[in-house]
Protein backbone atom coordinates (compact mmCIF):
# COMPACT_ATOMS: atom_id res chain seq x y z
CA UNK A 1 0.00 0.00 0.00
CA UNK A 2 1.19 3.50 -0.72
CA UNK A 3 0.20 5.58 2.27
CA UNK A 4 1.01 9.23 2.21
CA UNK A 5 -0.07 12.05 4.42
CA UNK A 6 0.73 15.65 3.65
CA UNK A 7 3.62 15.74 6.11
CA UNK A 8 5.26 12.74 4.49
CA UNK A 9 4.47 14.07 1.08
CA UNK A 10 6.31 17.31 1.68
CA UNK A 11 8.97 16.41 4.21
CA UNK A 12 10.02 12.87 3.46
CA UNK A 13 10.40 13.29 -0.25
CA UNK A 14 14.07 12.37 -0.18
CA UNK A 15 13.51 9.25 1.88
CA UNK A 16 13.20 5.86 0.30
CA UNK A 17 9.51 5.11 0.34
CA UNK A 18 7.40 2.21 -0.81
CA UNK A 19 6.12 4.47 -3.54
CA UNK A 20 9.52 5.05 -5.02
CA UNK A 21 9.21 2.21 -7.48
CA UNK A 22 5.97 3.51 -8.89
CA UNK A 23 5.68 5.26 -12.26
CA UNK A 24 2.75 7.38 -11.14
CA UNK A 25 2.21 11.08 -10.81
CA UNK A 26 0.24 11.89 -7.70
CA UNK A 27 -0.94 15.45 -7.52
CA UNK A 28 -2.13 16.87 -4.25
CA UNK A 29 -3.92 20.19 -4.43
CA UNK A 30 -4.88 22.23 -1.43
CA UNK A 31 -7.23 24.96 -2.38
CA UNK A 32 -8.61 26.25 0.89
CA UNK A 33 -9.53 29.65 -0.50
CA UNK A 34 -13.04 29.84 0.87
CA UNK A 35 -12.32 28.02 4.10
CA UNK A 36 -14.82 25.39 3.06
CA UNK A 37 -12.42 23.69 0.67
CA UNK A 38 -10.77 20.46 1.72
CA UNK A 39 -7.36 19.06 0.88
CA UNK A 40 -7.54 16.26 -1.58
CA UNK A 41 -5.40 14.28 -3.95
CA UNK A 42 -5.85 13.03 -7.46
CA UNK A 43 -3.54 11.12 -9.76
CA UNK A 44 -2.52 11.84 -13.32
CA UNK A 45 -1.59 9.31 -16.00
CA UNK A 46 -0.78 10.50 -19.50
CA UNK A 47 0.66 9.83 -22.96
CA UNK A 48 0.32 6.04 -23.24
CA UNK A 49 0.61 6.06 -27.08
CA UNK A 50 -0.94 2.61 -27.45
CA UNK A 51 0.30 1.54 -30.91
CA UNK A 52 -1.30 -1.07 -33.13
CA UNK A 53 1.06 -3.35 -35.09
CA UNK A 54 -1.63 -5.40 -36.85
CA UNK A 55 -4.18 -8.09 -36.04
CA UNK A 56 -4.22 -8.49 -32.27
CA UNK A 57 -0.65 -7.17 -31.80
CA UNK A 58 0.22 -3.91 -30.07
CA UNK A 59 3.65 -2.49 -29.17
CA UNK A 60 4.55 -4.33 -25.97
CA UNK A 61 6.69 -1.54 -24.52
CA UNK A 62 3.91 1.09 -24.54
CA UNK A 63 1.29 -1.40 -23.26
CA UNK A 64 3.55 -2.25 -20.31
CA UNK A 65 4.03 1.41 -19.36
CA UNK A 66 0.30 2.03 -19.05
CA UNK A 67 -0.36 -1.30 -17.32
CA UNK A 68 2.37 -0.60 -14.78
CA UNK A 69 1.06 2.85 -13.93
CA UNK A 70 -2.44 1.46 -13.41
CA UNK A 71 -1.22 -1.35 -11.14
CA UNK A 72 0.67 1.19 -9.08
CA UNK A 73 -2.16 3.72 -9.02
CA UNK A 74 -4.48 0.97 -7.80
CA UNK A 75 -2.24 0.54 -4.74
CA UNK A 76 -2.56 4.18 -3.64
CA UNK A 77 -3.91 4.59 -0.14
CA UNK A 78 -5.77 6.66 0.77
CA UNK A 79 -7.49 6.51 -2.59
CA UNK A 80 -7.15 9.61 -4.80
CA UNK A 81 -10.49 11.33 -5.32
CA UNK A 82 -10.22 10.71 -9.07
CA UNK A 83 -7.80 10.31 -11.97
CA UNK A 84 -6.93 12.26 -15.04
CA UNK A 85 -5.72 10.75 -18.27
CA UNK A 86 -3.82 13.56 -19.99
CA UNK A 87 -4.20 12.62 -23.68
CA UNK A 88 -2.50 10.53 -26.38
CA UNK A 89 -4.09 7.28 -25.32
CA UNK A 90 -3.54 6.15 -28.95
CA UNK A 91 -0.60 6.57 -31.35
CA UNK A 92 -2.54 6.93 -34.62
CA UNK A 93 -6.09 7.47 -33.35
CA UNK A 94 -7.58 4.20 -34.63
CA UNK A 95 -10.50 2.39 -33.03
CA UNK A 96 -8.19 -0.56 -32.36
CA UNK A 97 -5.79 1.65 -30.39
CA UNK A 98 -8.48 3.57 -28.49
CA UNK A 99 -10.37 0.36 -27.66
CA UNK A 100 -7.22 -1.44 -26.53
CA UNK A 101 -6.16 1.58 -24.46
CA UNK A 102 -9.57 1.89 -22.83
CA UNK A 103 -9.58 -1.82 -22.04
CA UNK A 104 -6.28 -1.39 -20.18
CA UNK A 105 -7.62 1.78 -18.51
CA UNK A 106 -10.73 -0.13 -17.37
CA UNK A 107 -8.54 -1.84 -14.75
CA UNK A 108 -7.95 1.50 -13.00
CA UNK A 109 -10.07 1.71 -9.84
CA UNK A 110 -11.76 5.12 -9.74
CA UNK A 111 -13.33 7.84 -11.86
CA UNK A 112 -11.18 9.01 -14.79
CA UNK A 113 -11.43 12.38 -16.55
CA UNK A 114 -9.96 12.29 -20.06
CA UNK A 115 -8.09 14.98 -22.01
CA UNK A 116 -7.79 14.88 -25.82
CA UNK A 117 -4.33 14.50 -27.33
CA UNK A 118 -3.33 15.09 -30.96
CA UNK A 119 -2.66 11.35 -31.44
CA UNK A 120 -6.28 10.68 -30.42
CA UNK A 121 -7.68 13.46 -32.59
CA UNK A 122 -6.31 13.82 -36.11
CA UNK A 123 -7.57 10.61 -37.72
CA UNK A 124 -11.29 11.36 -37.38
CA UNK A 125 -11.13 14.74 -35.57
CA UNK A 126 -11.98 13.12 -32.26
CA UNK A 127 -15.19 11.44 -33.38
CA UNK A 128 -14.51 7.93 -32.04
CA UNK A 129 -12.84 9.25 -28.87
CA UNK A 130 -15.88 11.45 -28.23
CA UNK A 131 -18.28 8.56 -28.81
CA UNK A 132 -16.49 6.61 -26.07
CA UNK A 133 -15.51 9.34 -23.61
CA UNK A 134 -17.81 12.33 -24.06
CA UNK A 135 -17.18 16.01 -24.85
CA UNK A 136 -13.74 17.25 -25.90
CA UNK A 137 -13.90 20.17 -23.47
CA UNK A 138 -15.78 20.50 -20.18
CA UNK A 139 -15.55 21.73 -16.59
CA UNK A 140 -16.54 20.49 -13.15
CA UNK A 141 -16.20 21.48 -9.50
CA UNK A 142 -14.64 19.36 -6.81
CA UNK A 143 -14.22 20.26 -3.11
CA UNK A 144 -14.04 23.97 -3.78
CA UNK A 145 -11.82 23.76 -6.88
CA UNK A 146 -12.97 24.54 -10.42
CA UNK A 147 -11.51 22.13 -13.00
CA UNK A 148 -11.45 23.00 -16.69
CA UNK A 149 -10.52 20.50 -19.41
CA UNK A 150 -9.55 21.90 -22.82
CA UNK A 151 -8.89 20.37 -26.21
CA UNK A 152 -5.73 22.39 -26.84
CA UNK A 153 -4.54 20.35 -29.84
CA UNK A 154 -6.76 21.92 -32.49
CA UNK A 155 -5.06 23.85 -35.27
CA UNK A 156 -5.84 26.17 -38.19
CA UNK A 157 -8.66 25.00 -40.50
CA UNK A 158 -6.48 25.36 -43.58
CA UNK A 159 -4.13 22.70 -42.30
CA UNK A 160 -6.85 20.42 -40.91
CA UNK A 161 -9.23 20.39 -43.84
CA UNK A 162 -7.20 20.95 -47.02
CA UNK A 163 -5.01 18.77 -49.16
CA UNK A 164 -4.99 15.42 -47.35
CA UNK A 165 -5.32 12.36 -49.64
CA UNK A 166 -6.71 10.40 -46.67
CA UNK A 167 -7.39 11.07 -42.96
CA UNK A 168 -4.47 8.80 -42.01
CA UNK A 169 -2.07 11.09 -43.91
CA UNK A 170 -3.21 13.98 -41.71
CA UNK A 171 -2.89 11.80 -38.62
CA UNK A 172 0.66 10.73 -39.48
CA UNK A 173 1.69 14.29 -40.31
CA UNK A 174 0.60 15.50 -36.85
CA UNK A 175 1.92 12.37 -35.10
CA UNK A 176 5.45 13.21 -36.30
CA UNK A 177 6.66 15.57 -33.57
CA UNK A 178 9.50 17.07 -35.63
CA UNK A 179 7.47 17.49 -38.82
CA UNK A 180 8.53 20.76 -40.49
CA UNK A 181 5.12 20.71 -42.25
CA UNK A 182 3.19 20.42 -38.99
CA UNK A 183 0.94 23.13 -37.61
CA UNK A 184 0.90 24.84 -34.20
CA UNK A 185 -1.66 23.78 -31.58
CA UNK A 186 -4.59 26.02 -30.87
CA UNK A 187 -7.52 26.13 -28.44
CA UNK A 188 -9.40 28.24 -30.94
CA UNK A 189 -12.04 30.95 -30.97
CA UNK A 190 -15.06 28.74 -30.29
CA UNK A 191 -13.54 27.07 -27.25
CA UNK A 192 -12.15 30.35 -25.93
CA UNK A 193 -15.66 31.81 -26.04
CA UNK A 194 -16.90 28.78 -24.11
CA UNK A 195 -14.07 29.16 -21.57
CA UNK A 196 -14.83 32.86 -21.06
CA UNK A 197 -18.47 32.03 -20.35
CA UNK A 198 -17.57 29.10 -18.11
CA UNK A 199 -15.22 31.22 -16.00
CA UNK A 200 -17.67 34.14 -15.70
CA UNK A 201 -19.73 32.24 -13.14
CA UNK A 202 -16.71 31.28 -11.00
CA UNK A 203 -15.72 33.37 -7.96
CA UNK A 204 -12.26 34.86 -8.50
CA UNK A 205 -11.07 33.46 -5.13
CA UNK A 206 -11.89 29.91 -6.17
CA UNK A 207 -8.79 27.97 -7.21
CA UNK A 208 -8.84 26.94 -10.86
CA UNK A 209 -7.05 23.93 -12.37
CA UNK A 210 -6.84 23.77 -16.17
CA UNK A 211 -5.97 20.44 -17.82
CA UNK A 212 -4.80 20.53 -21.42
CA UNK A 213 -2.69 18.26 -23.56
CA UNK A 214 -0.26 20.87 -24.90
CA UNK A 215 1.44 23.42 -22.67
CA UNK A 216 -0.57 26.67 -22.61
CA UNK A 217 2.84 28.29 -23.04
CA UNK A 218 5.24 28.91 -25.91
CA UNK A 219 8.30 26.80 -25.23
CA UNK A 220 9.49 25.30 -28.54
CA UNK A 221 7.41 25.58 -31.69
CA UNK A 222 9.40 22.98 -33.68
CA UNK A 223 8.02 20.16 -31.52
CA UNK A 224 4.70 21.83 -30.70
CA UNK A 225 5.70 22.40 -27.06
CA UNK A 226 3.45 25.33 -27.83
CA UNK A 227 -0.11 26.65 -27.96
CA UNK A 228 -0.53 29.44 -30.48
CA UNK A 229 -3.30 31.28 -28.59
CA UNK A 230 -1.71 30.77 -25.14
CA UNK A 231 -1.75 34.51 -24.34
CA UNK A 232 -5.50 34.77 -24.95
CA UNK A 233 -6.21 31.82 -22.65
CA UNK A 234 -3.88 33.07 -19.92
CA UNK A 235 -5.64 36.47 -20.12
CA UNK A 236 -8.92 34.73 -19.27
CA UNK A 237 -7.25 33.07 -16.26
CA UNK A 238 -5.50 36.19 -15.00
CA UNK A 239 -8.33 37.52 -12.78
CA UNK A 240 -8.22 34.39 -10.60
CA UNK A 241 -6.13 34.32 -7.46
CA UNK A 242 -4.78 30.79 -7.88
CA UNK A 243 -4.51 29.01 -11.17
CA UNK A 244 -2.65 25.85 -12.14
CA UNK A 245 -2.25 24.49 -15.66
CA UNK A 246 -1.45 20.76 -15.96
CA UNK A 247 -0.39 19.40 -19.33
CA UNK A 248 0.95 16.28 -21.04
CA UNK A 249 2.46 16.05 -24.52
CA UNK A 250 6.06 16.89 -23.57
CA UNK A 251 6.94 13.54 -21.90
CA UNK A 252 9.21 15.23 -19.35
CA UNK A 253 9.30 17.21 -16.12
CA UNK A 254 8.62 20.90 -16.74
CA UNK A 255 7.33 23.57 -14.39
CA UNK A 256 6.97 27.29 -14.55
CA UNK A 257 5.25 30.27 -12.95
CA UNK A 258 3.80 33.13 -14.99
CA UNK A 259 2.12 35.72 -12.76
CA UNK A 260 -0.66 34.00 -10.81
CA UNK A 261 -0.45 30.84 -12.92
CA UNK A 262 1.61 27.74 -12.07
CA UNK A 263 2.42 25.27 -14.83
CA UNK A 264 3.33 21.60 -14.45
CA UNK A 265 3.89 18.96 -17.10
CA UNK A 266 3.09 15.32 -16.38
CA UNK A 267 5.22 12.34 -17.37
CA UNK A 268 4.38 9.92 -20.17
CA UNK A 269 3.94 6.22 -19.47
CA UNK A 270 5.26 5.40 -22.99
CA UNK A 271 8.67 7.04 -23.60
CA UNK A 272 10.56 10.22 -22.62
CA UNK A 273 11.35 13.11 -24.94
CA UNK A 274 14.58 15.09 -25.04
CA UNK A 275 14.52 18.64 -23.71
CA UNK A 276 14.39 21.15 -26.59
CA UNK A 277 17.83 22.49 -25.62
CA UNK A 278 19.35 19.17 -26.75
CA UNK A 279 18.41 19.90 -30.39
CA UNK A 280 21.48 21.79 -31.60
CA UNK A 281 19.82 23.55 -34.56
CA UNK A 282 17.10 25.55 -32.80
CA UNK A 283 16.53 27.93 -29.92
CA UNK A 284 13.84 27.24 -27.34
CA UNK A 285 12.27 29.23 -24.52
CA UNK A 286 12.49 26.58 -21.86
CA UNK A 287 11.34 27.63 -18.36
CA UNK A 288 14.45 28.48 -16.33
CA UNK A 289 12.69 27.41 -13.15
CA UNK A 290 12.62 23.73 -14.18
CA UNK A 291 15.17 21.31 -12.79
CA UNK A 292 15.13 18.70 -15.59
CA UNK A 293 14.42 15.02 -15.10
CA UNK A 294 17.41 12.69 -15.26
CA UNK A 295 18.71 11.87 -18.73
CA UNK A 296 17.03 8.64 -19.74
CA UNK A 297 18.78 5.28 -19.73
CA UNK A 298 17.46 3.62 -22.92
CA UNK A 299 18.43 0.18 -21.61
CA UNK A 300 15.76 0.43 -18.91
CA UNK A 301 12.66 0.94 -20.97
CA UNK A 302 10.56 2.52 -18.24
CA UNK A 303 13.27 5.04 -17.33
CA UNK A 304 12.21 8.69 -17.54
CA UNK A 305 8.57 7.65 -17.79
CA UNK A 306 6.10 7.79 -14.94
CA UNK A 307 2.90 9.20 -13.51
CA UNK A 308 2.08 11.56 -10.67
CA UNK A 309 0.06 12.22 -7.52
CA UNK A 310 -1.28 15.71 -7.17
CA UNK A 311 -1.96 17.22 -3.81
CA UNK A 312 -4.35 20.13 -3.76
CA UNK A 313 -3.69 22.17 -0.67
CA UNK A 314 -4.21 25.86 0.12
CA UNK A 315 -5.23 26.38 -3.49
CA UNK A 316 -1.97 25.31 -5.07
CA UNK A 317 -0.85 22.11 -6.65
CA UNK A 318 2.01 19.98 -5.33
CA UNK A 319 3.25 17.40 -7.81
CA UNK A 320 4.81 14.13 -6.81
CA UNK A 321 6.42 12.34 -9.74
CA UNK A 322 6.56 8.55 -9.50
CA UNK A 323 9.63 7.47 -11.45
CA UNK A 324 10.44 3.77 -11.86
CA UNK A 325 14.21 4.07 -12.25
CA UNK A 326 15.05 7.32 -10.43
CA UNK A 327 14.32 8.73 -7.03
CA UNK A 328 10.81 10.18 -6.99
CA UNK A 329 10.59 13.94 -7.28
CA UNK A 330 8.29 16.42 -5.56
CA UNK A 331 7.69 19.86 -6.99
CA UNK A 332 5.56 21.80 -4.51
CA UNK A 333 4.29 25.37 -4.49
CA UNK A 334 6.54 27.54 -2.33
CA UNK A 335 4.39 30.16 -0.61
CA UNK A 336 7.46 32.32 0.16
CA UNK A 337 8.59 32.72 -3.45
CA UNK A 338 5.15 32.23 -4.99
CA UNK A 339 6.26 29.57 -7.44
CA UNK A 340 6.81 25.82 -7.70
CA UNK A 341 9.98 24.43 -6.16
CA UNK A 342 11.65 21.05 -6.42
CA UNK A 343 11.93 19.85 -2.84
CA UNK A 344 15.41 18.42 -3.27
CA UNK A 345 17.18 19.76 -6.36
CA UNK A 346 16.01 23.37 -6.82
CA UNK A 347 19.20 24.88 -5.39
CA UNK A 348 21.85 24.72 -8.16
CA UNK A 349 24.27 23.28 -5.56
CA UNK A 350 22.06 20.20 -5.29
CA UNK A 351 21.88 19.37 -9.00
CA UNK A 352 23.31 16.04 -10.14
CA UNK A 353 25.19 15.03 -13.32
CA UNK A 354 22.13 13.21 -14.79
CA UNK A 355 20.25 16.56 -14.73
CA UNK A 356 22.58 17.88 -17.43
CA UNK A 357 21.05 17.58 -20.90
CA UNK A 358 22.97 18.40 -24.05
Amino acid at each position, binding site marked *: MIRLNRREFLIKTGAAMAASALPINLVRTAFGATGAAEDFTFAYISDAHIQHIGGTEFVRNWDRGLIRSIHEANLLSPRPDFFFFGGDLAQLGTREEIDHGLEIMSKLRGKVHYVMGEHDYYLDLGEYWESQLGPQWYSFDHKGVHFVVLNSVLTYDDWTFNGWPAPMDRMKAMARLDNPKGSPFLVGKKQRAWLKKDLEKVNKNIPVVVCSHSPIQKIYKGWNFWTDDAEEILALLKPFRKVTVLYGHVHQIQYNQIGNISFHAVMATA*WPWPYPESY*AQAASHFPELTVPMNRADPFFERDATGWQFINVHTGNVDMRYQLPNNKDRTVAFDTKTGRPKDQEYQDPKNRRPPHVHY
Partner: protein
Amino acid sequence: MGKPAKLVGVLLLTLTCLILVLPAQADEFTPEDLERWEQEFMAVVDEGEKQFHSSQLGKNQVSCDQCHPNGANTHPETYPKFQKQLGRVIELFEMINWCIENPLEGDPLVADDPRMIALEAYIHYERRGVPLAPGKH
Protein backbone atom coordinates in the same frame (compact mmCIF):
# COMPACT_ATOMS: atom_id res chain seq x y z
CA MET B 1 79.50 21.68 -66.13
CA GLY B 2 79.92 17.87 -66.55
CA LYS B 3 77.28 15.52 -67.85
CA PRO B 4 76.24 14.12 -64.48
CA ALA B 5 75.80 17.61 -63.11
CA LYS B 6 73.66 18.52 -66.12
CA LEU B 7 71.53 15.41 -65.52
CA VAL B 8 71.07 16.31 -61.86
CA GLY B 9 70.11 19.84 -62.94
CA VAL B 10 67.49 18.53 -65.35
CA LEU B 11 66.14 16.11 -62.74
CA LEU B 12 65.90 18.85 -60.13
CA LEU B 13 64.12 21.10 -62.60
CA THR B 14 61.71 18.29 -63.46
CA LEU B 15 61.05 17.55 -59.76
CA THR B 16 60.51 21.22 -59.03
CA CYS B 17 58.02 21.40 -61.88
CA LEU B 18 56.26 18.28 -60.59
CA ILE B 19 56.10 19.68 -57.06
CA LEU B 20 54.74 22.96 -58.31
CA VAL B 21 52.36 21.60 -60.92
CA LEU B 22 51.01 18.26 -59.64
CA PRO B 23 49.55 19.38 -56.33
CA ALA B 24 47.95 22.32 -58.08
CA GLN B 25 46.31 19.88 -60.46
CA ALA B 26 45.12 17.67 -57.59
CA ASP B 27 43.55 20.68 -55.89
CA GLU B 28 41.72 21.86 -58.95
CA PHE B 29 38.09 21.43 -58.04
CA THR B 30 35.47 23.86 -59.02
CA PRO B 31 32.47 25.40 -57.28
CA GLU B 32 30.38 23.02 -59.38
CA ASP B 33 32.29 20.08 -57.89
CA LEU B 34 31.63 21.36 -54.40
CA GLU B 35 27.98 21.76 -55.16
CA ARG B 36 27.73 18.23 -56.54
CA TRP B 37 29.50 16.69 -53.56
CA GLU B 38 27.21 18.58 -51.22
CA GLN B 39 24.21 17.30 -53.19
CA GLU B 40 25.50 13.72 -53.01
CA PHE B 41 25.88 14.08 -49.25
CA MET B 42 22.49 15.71 -48.73
CA ALA B 43 20.78 12.98 -50.78
CA VAL B 44 22.09 10.48 -48.23
CA VAL B 45 21.03 12.74 -45.34
CA ASP B 46 17.53 12.89 -46.87
CA GLU B 47 17.46 9.10 -47.16
CA GLY B 48 18.58 8.94 -43.52
CA GLU B 49 15.76 11.25 -42.53
CA LYS B 50 13.31 8.88 -44.28
CA GLN B 51 14.76 5.81 -42.54
CA PHE B 52 14.78 7.62 -39.19
CA HIS B 53 11.06 8.37 -39.53
CA SER B 54 10.12 5.04 -41.11
CA SER B 55 7.84 2.54 -39.37
CA GLN B 56 9.47 -0.19 -41.51
CA LEU B 57 13.06 -0.03 -40.19
CA GLY B 58 12.11 -2.36 -37.32
CA LYS B 59 9.27 -4.84 -37.05
CA ASN B 60 6.77 -3.22 -34.67
CA GLN B 61 5.90 0.03 -36.52
CA VAL B 62 7.95 2.07 -34.03
CA SER B 63 10.30 4.62 -35.64
CA CYS B 64 13.49 6.25 -34.34
CA ASP B 65 11.97 9.75 -34.19
CA GLN B 66 9.31 8.63 -31.71
CA CYS B 67 11.98 8.96 -29.00
CA HIS B 68 14.49 11.18 -30.85
CA PRO B 69 12.79 14.12 -32.64
CA ASN B 70 15.31 15.72 -35.01
CA GLY B 71 17.77 13.03 -33.91
CA ALA B 72 18.06 14.79 -30.52
CA ASN B 73 19.50 12.96 -27.50
CA THR B 74 21.62 10.64 -29.69
CA HIS B 75 24.93 12.49 -29.05
CA PRO B 76 26.85 11.31 -32.15
CA GLU B 77 29.76 13.57 -31.18
CA THR B 78 30.45 11.41 -28.10
CA TYR B 79 31.25 8.16 -30.00
CA PRO B 80 33.26 6.02 -29.71
CA LYS B 81 32.48 5.88 -26.01
CA PHE B 82 32.18 3.49 -23.11
CA GLN B 83 28.57 2.31 -23.07
CA LYS B 84 28.12 1.38 -19.44
CA GLN B 85 25.21 -0.96 -20.12
CA LEU B 86 27.29 -3.01 -22.61
CA GLY B 87 30.53 -2.78 -20.63
CA ARG B 88 32.75 -1.77 -23.58
CA VAL B 89 33.63 1.05 -25.94
CA ILE B 90 31.29 1.11 -28.94
CA GLU B 91 30.74 3.06 -32.16
CA LEU B 92 27.56 4.96 -33.01
CA PHE B 93 26.30 2.27 -35.41
CA GLU B 94 26.30 -0.27 -32.59
CA MET B 95 24.00 1.93 -30.52
CA ILE B 96 21.75 2.48 -33.56
CA ASN B 97 21.56 -1.30 -33.92
CA TRP B 98 20.72 -1.63 -30.22
CA CYS B 99 17.75 0.66 -30.81
CA ILE B 100 16.70 -1.25 -33.95
CA GLU B 101 16.81 -4.56 -32.06
CA ASN B 102 15.13 -3.41 -28.84
CA PRO B 103 12.59 -0.56 -29.02
CA LEU B 104 12.03 -1.31 -32.75
CA GLU B 105 12.13 -5.12 -32.27
CA GLY B 106 13.92 -5.49 -35.63
CA ASP B 107 17.08 -7.04 -37.14
CA PRO B 108 20.44 -5.24 -36.90
CA LEU B 109 22.12 -3.74 -40.00
CA VAL B 110 25.75 -4.32 -41.00
CA ALA B 111 27.95 -1.26 -40.49
CA ASP B 112 28.20 -0.44 -44.21
CA ASP B 113 24.55 -1.09 -45.05
CA PRO B 114 23.46 1.98 -47.06
CA ARG B 115 20.56 2.45 -44.61
CA MET B 116 23.00 2.53 -41.67
CA ILE B 117 25.25 5.04 -43.45
CA ALA B 118 22.17 7.14 -44.22
CA LEU B 119 21.00 7.01 -40.58
CA GLU B 120 24.45 8.08 -39.40
CA ALA B 121 24.56 10.89 -41.98
CA TYR B 122 21.17 12.22 -40.79
CA ILE B 123 22.05 11.95 -37.09
CA HIS B 124 25.38 13.73 -37.60
CA TYR B 125 23.83 16.38 -39.83
CA GLU B 126 21.23 17.28 -37.21
CA ARG B 127 24.12 17.65 -34.75
CA ARG B 128 26.32 19.81 -36.98
CA GLY B 129 28.27 22.54 -35.23
CA VAL B 130 28.61 20.65 -31.94
CA PRO B 131 32.29 20.06 -30.99
CA LEU B 132 33.60 16.50 -31.02
CA ALA B 133 33.59 14.98 -27.52
CA PRO B 134 34.64 11.32 -27.88
CA GLY B 135 34.07 9.31 -24.72
CA LYS B 136 31.76 11.85 -23.08
CA HIS B 137 28.80 10.44 -21.18
